């Protein structure tokens, strides 16, 4: 069975969708030579009218894609750095996202924003280590964070086909993940449908993005003593609330591990919703970056701000003891 890397899965999804639909086009900086690899080979395959190297003008080309989408295309924009989303928050949250409602349903803006390498990449310091998915979930922009190569393929394909703007975060911590897959079995994955990577009965760990792999490792470590269910929401907006409720029916205990800042992060929303609406027999817990964190440069400091397996394990043990 072929062994597919996460990055190659993204690349394959874009290529397959461009093959399938001539309206799909790609904008971004250095997408021609594919410095991030996500767009490798696409310029040669589809030509410069469909794969466009843009000047370093994120704000202009992000809304340029909005206009192109209103005129019938399905642009995908690749951003080299997750913090560039702060530059184009206006263009995504305040323009692309709002057009459907503000026009009373007269238009749609099917643009995909791809972030290959979100979150900390070993010591890239303050302006290259953000993981701002919670911001987009907060404003209601469709937001996905795939954890595995086949989900990266399937969620990106769905994002490209979706009639609304969708931000796809590909965590740098997941880019190296590989998976044996049958290429014929690669298929779109719907938004808003979570995935249980491992069943369990004592506690549900909701893990976002690359942290799914840490959660699986912790579940394995604890296998003799605690039965951990690992739930990967895959998309944060829409979120699979019924999938989470079903999992909590089985376990009654909840730990969320989320590589974004604690205050107003997606982890807070998951915990709050579970507390309001779902079966909990112990207080829910969160493992996140600190409040308002900016990742420092020195590797040890950078790591000190990210959720760790040890923290997750401690949180799981606390949750189990408490109920």
């Amino acid at each position, binding site marked *: 069975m072929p062994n597919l890397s996460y990055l190659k899965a993204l690349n394959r999804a874009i290529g397959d969708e461009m093959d399938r639909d001539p309206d799909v086009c790609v904008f971004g900086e250095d997408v021609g030579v594919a410095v991030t690899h996500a767009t490798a080979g696409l310029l040669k395959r589809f030509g410069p009218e469909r794969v466009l190297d843009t000047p370093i003008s994120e704000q202009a080309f992000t809304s340029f894609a909005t206009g192109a989408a209103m005129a019938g295309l399905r642009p995908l924009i690749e951003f080299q750095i997750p913090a560039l989303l702060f530059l184009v928050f206006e263009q995504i949250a305040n323009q692309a996202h709002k057009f459907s409602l503000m*026009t009373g349903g007269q238009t*749609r803006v099917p643009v995909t924003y791809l972030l290959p390498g979100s979150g900390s990449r070993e010591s890239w310091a303050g302006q290259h280590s953000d993981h701002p998915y919670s911001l987009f979930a907060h404003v209601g922009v469709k937001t996905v964070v795939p954890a595995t190569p086949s989900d990266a393929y399937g969620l990106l394909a769905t994002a490209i086909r979706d009639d*609304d703007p969708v931000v796809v975060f590909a965590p740098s911590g997941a880019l190296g993940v590989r998976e044996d897959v049958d290429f014929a079995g690669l298929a779109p994955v719907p938004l808003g449908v979570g995935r249980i990577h491992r069943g369990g009965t004592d506690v549900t760990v909701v893990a976002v993005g690359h942290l799914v792999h840490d959660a699986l490792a912790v579940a394995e470590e604890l296998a003799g003593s605690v039965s951990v269910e690992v739930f990967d929401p895959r998309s944060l907006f829409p979120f699979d609330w019924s999938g989470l409720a079903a999992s909590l029916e089985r376990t009654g205990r909840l730990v969320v591990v989320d590589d974004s800042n604690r205050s107003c992060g997606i982890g807070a929303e998951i915990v709050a919703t579970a507390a309001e609406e779902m079966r909990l027999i112990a207080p829910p817990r969160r493992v996140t970056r600190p409040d308002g964190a900016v990742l420092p440069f020195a590797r040890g400091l950078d790591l000190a701000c990210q959720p760790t397996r040890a923290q997750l394990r401690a949180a799981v043990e606390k949750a189990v003891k408490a109920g």
Partner: protein
Amino acid sequence: MTDATTGPATGPAAALYRSVALIRGFEQRAIELVRAKVVLGGIHPYTGQEAIAAGTCAALRPDDVITSTHRGHGHVLAKGADPARMMAELAGRTTGLNRGRGGSMHAADFGVGVLGANAIVGAAVPIAAGAAWAFRRAGSDRVALSYFGDGAVSQGVVLETFNLAALWRVPVVLVCENNGFATSMRTADTVAGSILGRAAAFGIPARTVDGTDPEAVLDATAEAVAHARTGRGPTLLECTTYRFDAHHTWEHTARPRYRTDAEVAAGRARDPLEIQGARIPATTRDAIDAELAELLDRAVRFACESPHPDPATALDHLYATGMRARAGAL
């Protein structure tokens, strides 16, 4: 372009007059409805600037598109939107262009090529450019035209778009409405260098046009549109004009002072309505005025009598796919 002295209410000069007069009349009614609290949130009156909307749209085909600004009523009407549905939109009614979801600053009518007025200064310029690029890519000769104010030329995204549009020869016409002010700030106090100089920096052909004269605007736009349609890329038109009324109707009560009465009087002396009105026979003008008065009366009645949207539908259309968000407070 003077119509025959006894001609009917048709012909290009009369059509331009009608377009200017429609916008003028619409704005007057809208201001009355703001005062009557039928239109909430106020409006940014376009009075005095009508020649630009009328002249530019007269140079466009129905299948060309525009993007507009917070001061967008004139553009939307000149492009062909139904005044009654536009008025209903200002009044927040279900029969409005945007089903009451957009209001004054977001009026859109995709059916006539209005991709939306936009409340963020400069934000719609790249949207027009992207649409124009998509047209060219589809092999059509449609063009896009984007309106923006003198204040917008200090926005990075506008200048970034100049670069993209020139680099990729995007068929977009860039129309700067220089009314001398960004809210209270004079153009000279906010624009270093010149507006045309910004275009020159990107190799974009640019000229200044008398934005109080509908025919001058039409001629200049026709040239810019032909330039775009034949694959030669963007043009910038700086249309000089004067805003007769407030920046926004809140000024009617707050009354900030940033220009003198003499200055306003001088500005009002060059009135596009009179300039174009003088080019058609008085009888034609009277006939058009009478037709518009009735049409606008009907528009106001239509807006006032149309239903308010059901609060339960507040988040309809949030997603083009029909996805429903969680209820929250609803």
